[in-house]
């Protein structure tokens, strides 16, 4: 299919050059985001070292007292550690996945096995509605409904009946003296909101994969007298193992980077959580909450530290998502099915 025009085709040549350049735009964006964040966070990487991930203290230092050392400026006494945020991010995301995964599994299985074909499509598009709701609306609903419920019903109930059990019960007070405990705005609130947000992603990946199960084996199982559940257990679950893990990873990836919903239902505090109701924050939410105050630091070190945190978050999120996508296939976009 070589071009038959013997003369140089300028229009076609410039068109080919244009689509090539446009195809490189995504790579260019990623490269420039990474390069710029690396450049910007460089002082923080030098200044904080590995301490950045292990320290529990985030302190901008004394305002206005700027020290210079080896070409790096920082405020006197500044310490930057995101250990509580990393722990909060991982815990919130994992608990969210722990809730969302079985829910998605049973929902998909139920829709696939027991629902008549006519209802199936409608049900799946209803679940897709979840994917369309903006995260800020989830956060808003969390503040209006979920937090008061946790605060007024769940926490007192746990407090009276399960107070002795570690990780669940315990004292609903602040772990740090002098700081108030914000009832309801804890690990569980964030995880619950996130779990609602990632259910459509996992469900979409699973549904996609369940539908590709070989029909012959399906019919074979039924003709041997298998029940629907046995068909699901022996065929669908087996067949979709990879997609199931991939879907879970994609859900986790979304949860790790989610900002607004978590920001609204948790308190932006740097605390190491001790139980399910502890006030926590995540890397993304903390950046969103504190970035504007970082500019009071004239040395720029606080902003650099935020850039480093963002870079780390981006790295982890990309890794989880790319692996998830490799396993799950590319058929699903943000909980919407594509075909």
């Amino acid at each position, binding site marked *: 299919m070589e071009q038959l025009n013997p003369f140089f085709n300028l229009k076609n040549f410039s068109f080919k050059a244009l689509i090539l350049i446009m195809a490189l735009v*995504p790579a260019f*964006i990623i490269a420039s985001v990474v390069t710029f964040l690396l450049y910007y966070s460089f002082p923080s990487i030098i200044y904080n070292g590995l301490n950045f991930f292990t320290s529990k203290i985030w302190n901008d230092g004394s305002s206005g007292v700027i020290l210079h050392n080896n070409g790096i400026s920082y405020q006197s006494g500044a310490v930057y550690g995101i250990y509580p945020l990393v722990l909060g991010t991982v815990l919130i995301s994992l608990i969210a996945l722990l809730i969302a995964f079985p829910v998605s599994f049973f929902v998909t299985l139920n829709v696939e096995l027991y629902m008549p074909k006519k209802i199936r499509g409608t049900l799946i598009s*209803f679940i897709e509605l979840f994917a369309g709701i903006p995260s800020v609306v*989830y956060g808003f609903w969390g503040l*209006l409904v979920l937090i008061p419920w946790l605060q007024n019903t769940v926490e007192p109930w746990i407090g009276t009946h399960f107070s002795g059990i570690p990780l669940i019960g315990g004292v609903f007070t602040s772990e740090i003296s002098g700081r108030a405990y914000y009832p309801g705005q804890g690990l569980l609130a964030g995880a619950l909101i996130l779990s609602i947000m990632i259910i459509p992603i996992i469900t979409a990946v699973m549904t996609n994969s369940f539908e590709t199960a070989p029909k012959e084996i399906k019919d074979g199982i039924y003709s041997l007298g298998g029940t629907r*559940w046995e068909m699901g257990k*022996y065929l669908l679950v087996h067949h979709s193992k990879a997609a199931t893990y991939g879907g879970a990873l994609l859900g986790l990836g979304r949860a790790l980077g989610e*900002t607004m919903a978590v920001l609204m239902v948790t308190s932006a505090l740097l605390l190491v959580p001790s139980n399910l109701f502890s006030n926590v924050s995540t890397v993304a939410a903390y950046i969103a909450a504190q970035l504007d105050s970082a500019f009071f630091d004239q040395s720029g070190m606080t902003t650099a530290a935020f850039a480093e945190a963002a870079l780390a978050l981006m790295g982890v999120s990309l890794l989880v998502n790319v692996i998830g996508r490799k396993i799950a296939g590319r058929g699903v976009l943000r909980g919407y099915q594509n075909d």
Partner: protein
Amino acid sequence: MTEGETVTVKWRKASIRSAKDTAVRIVGYIILFILFAVLAAIFYEIADGALSNITWQILTTSNTFEGTTGGGIYEAIAGTWMLVGTGLLFSVPPGILGSLYVVRAKSSKTLSSLVRLFTDILTSVPSIVIGLFGYLFMVYYLGWGFSLIAGGIALAIMMLPYIFRVAELSMKAIPVEQIHNAYALGADDFQVATRIYIPQALSGVLSGIMLAISIAAGETAQLLYTAGWNAGGLPSGFTNNNLGVGYLTYIVYNGLLQGSAIPNATNLAYIAAFVLIVTILVLVLLSKSMNRIVKKLSQIMRGTR
């Protein structure tokens, strides 16, 4: 179950097996019910809070969270569309032209798969990272200030992969023979793109754009530090728009934080959330039925109806 694999199944008593089946079915129904109850609760809460207060005046009044009445959400609605429009300006060309590169038969396969990988990666960049990048790079480093263009580009980064992916999928669905025939008749890449790929994949391309708009309209984290916030007027240019640009999600985010000092703040948040959800639902529905719409429109235009 992969090919050649055997699974040993021990059949237990029929009654136990059917009881298990029923148990799984019931657990599934209960979980489904809870899920839809939550969905209904979210919609009900927003609709109930919004519909009891929504008036035409609130939708067309300026100065959100200001004055004695708390103002309206006019700037936010218009600002959201201006930001999304700017985002489209920067995401549609690379989205469509990039997918044309990827589906072109003569393109490098390695490069095409790399392009796909990078667009996939782009969907998984956390929104706050894009926001932080926009803040440090566009707002400060380039000196654009809180502006329409900074917010628009931040949105475009998020919209591009959706436009690209859906366009690519629908272009791939075009029969290969048709494209081969066009090349065999002497058409060049430009002609194949403009006469075959784009017209045939039009509904897919449009539905990807609708999907991208619906996602961009609901974004907040990118905009907080790039578009800033301004309810005192609409931006007159692309850069340095005074305090920034207003957008609906900001009202939803900030409504409950305003406290009782601002009358109506909570109501405005309800209304903004309601307007957002309705807008997004309409866009998602449009995106899903784009295929049918385009078919109808082309029939009408050709006069074959």
